[in-house]
């Protein structure tokens, strides 16, 4: 557990850099989290992040397949938005826990 400063705000993150409290999330924090991985967030990225946040709130199991069926982006597009980690990076920027998912 560590405290980091994103967008001028103190944010509690775990060892892997995931936010501990999703309710503290803001778009500005997401932008800075993404910058750490070298990704510039666009509106399309935010649509995915909002989808993940809503699904997480409902307690759904998150998989790339689910995102692919969300109507926002297909799986190939998801890889293009979040290269090298379609689920691990998108969930990180969405301020939700890392999904315990193999799919």
């Amino acid at each position, binding site marked *: 557990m560590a405290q980091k400063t994103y967008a001028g705000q103190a944010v509690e993150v775990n*060892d*892997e*850099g995931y936010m501990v409290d999703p309710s503290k999330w803001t778009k500005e924090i997401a932008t800075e989290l993404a910058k750490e991985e070298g990704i510039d967030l666009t509106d399309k990225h935010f649509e995915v992040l909002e989808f993940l946040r809503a699904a997480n709130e409902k307690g759904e*199991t998150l*998989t*790339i*397949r*689910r995102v*692919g069926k969300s109507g926002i982006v*297909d*799986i*190939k597009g*998801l*890889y293009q938005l979040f*290269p*090298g*980690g*379609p*689920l*691990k990076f998108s969930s990180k920027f969405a301020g939700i826990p890392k999904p315990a998912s*193999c*799919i």
Partner: protein
Amino acid sequence: MSTTNESPLKKVCIICAKGTIEDVYATLVMANGAVMEGIEAKVFFTFFGLDAITKKQMKRIKTATVGNPAMRAPGGLPFPTILGMIPGVEAGVSAMMKSQMYKLDMPPVGEFLEMITAGGGEIYACKLAMDMFKLEKEDLHEEVKGVLTIGDFYGKCGGDNTQIIFT
């Protein structure tokens, strides 16, 4: 995050030589799991594993109900091998396995292959086994990138931090 100085895995080359549900899905889950983590994945299907990428067979893969000591009935009750020999049991058990997997969002084989290639993974078929089973490239799913000899496949398995996995 690991605190040791291990350098991360960069590439997995997975060889699948069997055509049962569990062997095929183990292969697909490992390959998909790799690309999801940003690890390069190359998959080589050979012998009965070819069923997983053959259009005609890929929807029909089954789990063995004979000679499978880990096989149990729901609730953990014993499942004597002799039951597995009854016609229809293998199909029933296989359908049950698949329905359980779909509940966990595991896609059918064809869609799984598409997920892997969407992430940059590559799927290959073994030339020798293709010849043996009299299969042509047209018999294979569209996501199969090519038909290779094992030597050609090894040629794609180079580089630091690469692992070859045989399922």
